[in-house]
């Protein structure tokens, strides 16, 4: 709830087109839910983004688009280990699916 509120406030302050959400959720389902929340709106209708379709650009930290845009050494230090641990393919599928369907920018 608190995160939804912060995303909403930051996106409104800096402009929807200037905001990118980077997710770190360890589960594909949870990451997909978060991606849906910041694009189509909160599907559980529980938080500030219920019925609010921000359509933000959203990526998971393990997606190639994000990986390729950061320093490889920092990436390896911060995320290298988790890349081995997470079900990267399912996470990408979920988040990419939401982005392609609902992202407006």
């Amino acid at each position, binding site marked *: 709830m608190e995160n939804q509120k912060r995303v909403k406030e930051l996106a409104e302050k800096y402009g929807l087109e200037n905001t990118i959400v980077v997710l770190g959720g*360890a*589960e594909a*389902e*949870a990451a997909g*839910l978060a991606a849906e929340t910041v694009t189509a709106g909160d599907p559980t209708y529980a938080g500030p983004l219920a019925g609010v379709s921000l359509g933000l650009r959203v990526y998971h930290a393990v997606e190639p688009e994000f990986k390729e845009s950061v320093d490889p050494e920092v990436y390896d*230090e*911060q*995320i*290298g*280990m*988790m890349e*081995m*641990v997470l079900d990267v393919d399912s996470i990408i599928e979920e988040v990419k699916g939401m982005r392609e369907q609902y992202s407006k920018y």
Partner: protein
Amino acid sequence: MSNAVIKGASYILVHAPDMVVHNGTTQTTEKILNSNSEYLKNLRNSLRTYEQAVNYLPNQVYIGNKTPEDLKAIPQPWVDKPVEGATRNGKFGEIMPEDEFIGLMKIVDVFDLVKLSKEFTKIIKTKLSNHPLISDELVSRLKDGEEFNDINKLISEQDAEPLYFDNNIVGCVKRAHDIDQNLSAHVIFENLVSKASAVLAALHLIDKTKINPDDIEYVIECSEEACGDMNQRGGGNFAKAIAEFAGLNNASGSDIRGFCAAPTHALISAASLVGANTFKNVLIVSGGSTAKLGMNGKDHVKKGLPILEDVVGGFAVLVSENDGESPILRNDLVGRHTVGTGSSPQAVITSLVTAPLDRGNLKITDIDKYSVEMQNPDITKPAGAGDVPNANYKMIAALGVKRGELERTQINEFIEKHGMEGWAPTQGHIPSGVPYVGFAIDDIKSGKVKKAMIIGKGSLFLGRMTNLFDGVSIVIENNDGRKEESKGISEEEIRSFVAEAMRDFAAHLLEE
């Protein structure tokens, strides 16, 4: 400085379905926000009976009737695979029914805040009289009970918290102050649940280890509750309040807090207190939480499951001076997530796992069993949180790969060999590292395991005082039977020193 040992551990559960409905925060929040929801209407249909909770395999593992190996032998989920012939009492403790527990709350209440009806008191008095660990003196504290009208009046006019059993009001917990929120009926209720479940764990520990209660000198309580009044909200001291009812006449104590990591902090502190010869026997104890009951209930119900978070947990561990046989707490091999560690999973696992191993020149594979956050995946998976212990083992293995101690293809083999399935209820501090301590004592004594690591982690940011996360770990290992020489040198050594000095003196005289 010498090493302390782990002499014993006890584990208890309390089946509390009515507390799920009336005191779990998911349900109480739903009542405020959406009082007519389908979830609340159908909630009771999703509650398990006491027998179902007893027959549940992870609960049987928690109280020691089944082992982590037994759990691993049966594929997840376990909710539809009841244990045949399961019993209330186990090697480490018991699963207490809710009515007896409400009686125990009354017994440990010294301010006459718990009021039970006459009818209910009569029934539980008989039941608790038959409990092998609840003495007649304790049972007599139940007295005769109150008139039902008086209880109703306290609930309707004085904000008392109703106590339910089988969906009927059987008593209440009064507020302890008219305006102080820290002494409200709700807070007193939660604190008495924590205290009563901790007392039950302490009584089981004394029973299982056969320690003379008078020999316990210090108690460390490590739950996630706070007791105090408006001038000292978290003043404490649960530890001494619990010690009083466990009959620990020679004990003082204090509370350690650190969210879910507190039990491992307590283990490290107890090891140091005993290792430094401050005390010979330190009891670590904690009761459970009603707020977390049914925490993921909505997800469970949505997926056609019963509400699996229907038990309050408790445990106790006895840390003592080296007896030459019990597993040793290596207080020189302690991991800690520091302020400067950072929050990436890699940094976290390095600080908790490999930093202490490096200090002992050990590899990740030198630890036979890792006890991480042993949350039951039956509970967490349907709620979208995944298999928590498995995720932790994957991270430890992946760090092993990065350090060149494992091949990437060996990750699953590592988890198979060094990991366990989770069996503990999601009561925050209860699943964190400590559920394996009881089994570790047996596994290490039998030689099946040489070294184990207990890891506790805590989400400090929930208290809004810091954004930091926390964690600590400690290695426990087999006892080689040698007690430390820390208390000085032996008589034989003194004789040999004197003889040597005499020889030197004689030689010196001869030279002259």
